C-alpha cells in the first residue's frame, strides 16, 4: 500500500472502586436495573456530587504507570449534551486541565519496540445503559456515575496490528495495577479508534474516520483493517474521505456510516461549580508512586536476569500479575540453581491445564510447593514425566497431594531392572521386525520399542532405563 496508516485510540476504562465517582452507590455489576442508584447519580433536582477520593487515587496510579505528568491543579468540567442515558444532560468530565498528560507506553509489535505517546488521562463519570425492546427504550442507571478513565493515545500507531498490541499491553499494565476489570464484554473497557491515511511524505494528517462499537481487541483490529482498505480504495480512485463516525458490525465484518460530523459538536464545557478546583499534593503523588507494583516490562527483565529465564518464557509468565507472582514463588522456592525444570512445568503442563480450565495458573487452587514436589519426583525418577502430567491434572481436580495420588494410582515409576526385564523380553519377542531394524542401525526403532514397554506398564516404566536395558540386551545378543 502506498499510504501510511495513522491510528489514535481512545480507551474508556471503568475503575473498580467500591462506590461511584460522585456518590456512595455501589458499583457492582449485574444488579437489578436501577437498584444501585440515589438522588445524586439519578441527577435529581437539588442533589450534588462529591468526588470519590479512591477513584482519583486510582486515576493517579494509572497515569503514573503510563509515565504521565500529574497536574498539580485540576478541576472537573461539565460536558453538556442531551441524551436519555445521561440524567443531568451533562457529564462531569475534565476538559482543559485533565489530571494528567504527556505519558507514553512502550510496546513490542511485530518484533519491534515502539513508543506510543499518551496524550492525556482524565477522570469522568459513566453514563447509564439504554436497552431497546421493540418500540420501547428502557434505561438502567446502575452504570451512571461509575468512575471512568479516558486514556487518549497520540496518533502514533501505524497498523491495525500495532493498535492490537498497544491495547494488549495497555490491558496487561492495567491488570497489574488492579484498578479495573478490563472486561470488554462487560463494557468495563471500551475502545474507539480514529484512523486516517496519508502519503508517507505528507506533513498533514489525512481526513479521519472514528470507529465505534468494537467489542474485543480483535474487533478493533478487524475494524481498522477494514477501514484502511476502504479508505485506501477511495483514495486510489481519486475520491475523498468523509469525516464521520462509523460503527463496526462484527457480523458482516464491515464499518457502517453512523453520522456525518458537520464541524465539531459544541459541548459548551465549563468548570463544574458544584465541585471545587483542587490541588493534587506532591505527597499524594509520591505515596501512590511508591505503592506502584512492579510493572510487566520490569518484571520480565528481572525474571531473565535473576532466574536465567528466556525472554519468551518470562513474557508468558508475566502475562498477569498474580500468575507472575505464583510463578515467581515456584521458581524462587525450587531448590536448585537451574530453574529450567520448574519453568518447563509452569509454561508446559501447568499452563495447558490452566488454559483448559480457562483460568490463570494462580487460580487453580494449587499450592506452589506441590508443583515443586511433583517436579522433583520426576527429577528423582520416582515417577515418569508422563504419569506426572496425569497426576497434575488429578491434583487440580481432587486437591489431593502428588504423593497420595501416586500411591493410590500405583503410579510409582518402575526403575527396577529385574521388574522390567521380563516385559522387555516379551516386547523383543513380539517385535522382531523392529529389533532387526535397530540392528540394521535405525535409531527410531529403539524409540518404538521403548514406547511398547511404556504401553505395557501403563506409562510407569522409567523410559531412560528401559532404553538402556533394551540397548544392552540387543547389542549383547
Amino acid at each position: 500500500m502506498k499510504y501510511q496508516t495513522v491510528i489514535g485510540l481512545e480507551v474508556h476504562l471503568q475503575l473498580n472502586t467500591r462506590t461511584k465517582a460522585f456518590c456512595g452507590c455501589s458499583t457492582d455489576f449485574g444488579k437489578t436495573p436501577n437498584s444501585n442508584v440515589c438522588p445524586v447519580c439519578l441527577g435529581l433536582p437539588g442533589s450534588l456530587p462529591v468526588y470519590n477520593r479512591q477513584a482519583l487515587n486510582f486515576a493517579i496510579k494509572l497515569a503514573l504507570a503510563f509515565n504521565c505528568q500529574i497536574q498539580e491543579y485540576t478541576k472537573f468540567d461539565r460536558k453538556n449534551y442531551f441524551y436519555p442515558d445521561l440524567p443531568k444532560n451533562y457529564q462531569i468530565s475534565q476538559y482543559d486541565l485533565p489530571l494528567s498528560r504527556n505519558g507514553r507506553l512502550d510496546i513490542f509489535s511485530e518484533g519491534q519496540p515502539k513508543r506510543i505517546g499518551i496524550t492525556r488521562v482524565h477522570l469522568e463519570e459513566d453514563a447509564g445503559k439504554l436497552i431497546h425492546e421493540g418500540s420501547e427504550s428502557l434505561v438502567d442507571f446502575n452504570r451512571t456515575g461509575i468512575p471512568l478513565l479516558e486514556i487518549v493515545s497520540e496518533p502514533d500507531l501505524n497498523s491495525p496490528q500495532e493498535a492490537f498490541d498497544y491495547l494488549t499491553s495497555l490491558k496487561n499494565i492495567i491488570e497489574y495495577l488492579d484498578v479495573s476489570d478490563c472486561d470488554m464484554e462487560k463494557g468495563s473497557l471500551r475502545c474507539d479508534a480514529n484512523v486516517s491515511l496519508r502519503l508517507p511524505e505528507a506533513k498533514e494528517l489525512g481526513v479521519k474516520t472514528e470507529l465505534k462499537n468494537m467489542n474485543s481487541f480483535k474487533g478493533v483490529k478487524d475494524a481498522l483493517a477494514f477501514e484502511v482498505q476502504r479508505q485506501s480504495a477511495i483514495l486510489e480512485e481519486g475520491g475523498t474521505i468523509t469525516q464521520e463516525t462509523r460503527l463496526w458490525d462484527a457480523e458482516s465484518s464491515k464499518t457502517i456510516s453512523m453520522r456525518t460530523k458537520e464541524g465539531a459538536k459544541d459541548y459548551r464545557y465549563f468548570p463544574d461549580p458544584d465541585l471545587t478546583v483542587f490541588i493534587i499534593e506532591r505527597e499524594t503523588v509520591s505515596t501512590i508512586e511508591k505503592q506502584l507494583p512492579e510493572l510487566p516490562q520490569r518484571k520480565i527483565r528481572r525474571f531473565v536476569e535473576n532466574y536465567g529465564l528466556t525472554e519468551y518464557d518470562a513474557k508468558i509468565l508475566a502475562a498477569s500479575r498474580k500468575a507472575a507472582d505464583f510463578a515467581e514463588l515456584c521458581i524462587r522456592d525450587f531448590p536448585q540453581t537451574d530453574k529450567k525444570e520448574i519453568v518447563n512445568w509452569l509454561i508446559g503442563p501447568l499452563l495447558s491445564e490452566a488454559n483448559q480450565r480457562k483460568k490463570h495458573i494462580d487460580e487453580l487452587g494449587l499450592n506452589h510447593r506441590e508443583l515443586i514436589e511433583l517436579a522433583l519426583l520426576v527429577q528423582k525418577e520416582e515417577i515418569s514425566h508422563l504419569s506426572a502430567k496425569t497426576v497434575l491434572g488429578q491434583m487440580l481436580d481432587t486437591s489431593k497431594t502428588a504423593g497420595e495420588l501416586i500411591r493410590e494410582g500405583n503410579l510409582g515409576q518402575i526403575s527396577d531392572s529385574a521388574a522390567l526385564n521380563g516385559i522387555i523380553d516379551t516386547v523383543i519377542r513380539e517385535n522382531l521386525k523392529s529389533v532387526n531394524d535397530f540392528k540394521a542401525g535405525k535409531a527410531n526403532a529403539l524409540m518404538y520399542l521403548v514406547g511398547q514397554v511404556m504401553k505395557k506398564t501403563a506409562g510407569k516404566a522409567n523410559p531412560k532405563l528401559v532404553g538402556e536395558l533394551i540397548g544392552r540386551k540387543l547389542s549383547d545378543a
Partner: protein
Amino acid sequence: MELNSLTAHEVLKKINAQETSSKEVLASLCGRIEKVDSLVNAYARKPQEGTLPLNLAPETGGILKGLPISVKDNICTQGILTECCSKILQGFKPPYEATVIRKLKDAGAFIFPLKANMDEFAFGSSTENSYFGPTHNPWDLERVPGGSSGGSAAAVASNQAIWALGSDTGGSIRQPASFCGVVGLKPTYGLVSRYGLIAFASSLDQIGPLTKDVQDAAVLTGIIAGYDPADSTSVNREVPNYTKSLTGEIKGLKIGIPREYFVEGLDAEVREVVEEAIAKFKELGATVAQVSLPHTEYAIPVYYIIATAEASSNLARFDGVQYGYRASSENLIEMYKATRAQGFGQEAKRRILLGTFVLSHGYYDAYYLRALKVRTLIKTDFDNVFKDFDCIVTPTSPTGAFKIGERATDPLKMYLSDIYTISVNLAGIPAISVPCGFTGKGLPVGLQIMAKPFGEETLFKAAHAYEQNTGWHKIKAKI
C-alpha cells in the same frame, strides 16, 4: 395579639412557659392564610377547600418545639411537592430531604406543607414569573413583594408564617425582605449546605432566613448553617452561637459607605431614609467613612453571564424523561423540545438561551471567561475595603416595591432591581437586609449591611443594635 403575628423567639417563650402550643400556632397561621392568602398569594399551591386548619400534628421535640416554618418552593422537602413554581416540575415530590430541612426537623421544626411562591426557578425580582401567578405585596396589593423569594417574604410580612426560608442568588432574599419590611440574610457562600436546593446558579446560590426580626434570623441561621459532606462547596468550620452577637453594643464599629451605590438611579426617598439610618449608626458610636468599590458597574453584566451560564446547564436535566412534566410526542428529540417549550416560562427560556450562548464555542472566552476574571476583581474590591472596615452599609434596593406589571415587559429594567445586591453573591460574602423606614407612599425600605466572608456575627450585631434602637420592624402591614 394573634399568635401568628409573633416572632419565633416570642412564640417559643410562650410554648416553653406552656402558655400556648405549636398546634395552636399552626391553627392561628392556618386561620390567617384562609383570611388573606387569596389576596397575597404567598403560597404556591392552595390548600383544598376545608383542609385548613391543617390536620397535621406538629412534632414537639427539639429546641423549636414543633414551631412551623415556611419553605420556598425550590428547597427539597421529602414527600412534599417541590416544583420551583414551574410547570416543568409538575408533580415532583422529592424522595429526599434537603440538608437544611433535615437540620430543621432535627431541631424540632414543623415543615409547613404549603410551599412559598417564587419566580420560576428563582429567575426574577418580583415573583411575577411564577407558574402559580404573582404574589402581592402585603403593604400594597398592587405592588410586587420583590423576588425571587417573594412568597417567603410576603408570608412573613402578612403573618402567614412565623418565619421562612428563601434562597438568594443575586438578591432573592434581601430584595423581597426590603420590599416587604422584614429581615433577610444571604449567608456567606459555603456556610449553609446547598444539598437539596434546586440549583439556579451553583456558584452563587445560598439558602437563608426571612424573619420578623434580627434575633430570629440569628437563631434560624444557627440551625441551618454548618458543614455538609454532601455539598463539596460547603465550608468546614465551626458555627458560632449567633445569638451571642446580639449585644446591642456597636461602639467603634467601622462602617464603609461605598460611593458607587449612591448614584443616579437611587430613589431620592430611599436615599434619604438610608442616610438617616447611617446617621443613627454614628449616633450609636460607629465610625462611618466613604469607601470605593470601583468595579461595581460591572456586577450586573458579570452576574447575568455567570448566573445564566450555570443555569443553562443546571436546567438541562428538566427534559421530561424521569420526573416532572412530559409533553407527549412521537420521538425523543421532539419530546425534549415540546416538554421544554411547554414546561418553561418565558424568563426561564430567556436565561437558558443567554447562558447557552455565552458558553458556546467562540464566545466562551469573550463572555464567560472574562466574566470570571471580572468577578475576581469585584471580590478584590471587597477584600480591600474589609481590610479597614468591619462592614459596608448600602440601600438594599434603589427603590421601594414597584407595581405589578411595571417592569415585567422590560427585562433590563427588572435586572437593575438587583443592582445593590448582586455584588455580594459574586464576592461570596454575607449581607443582611433590615427594615429602615418607609417611602412617602408608605412602602418599606431596607438597609443592607455587608461583611467579610463568615462575618455573620458582625452583621447580626450591627443589624440588631440598629433594629433595637429604631423599632422599624414593629410596624406591620395593614392587611
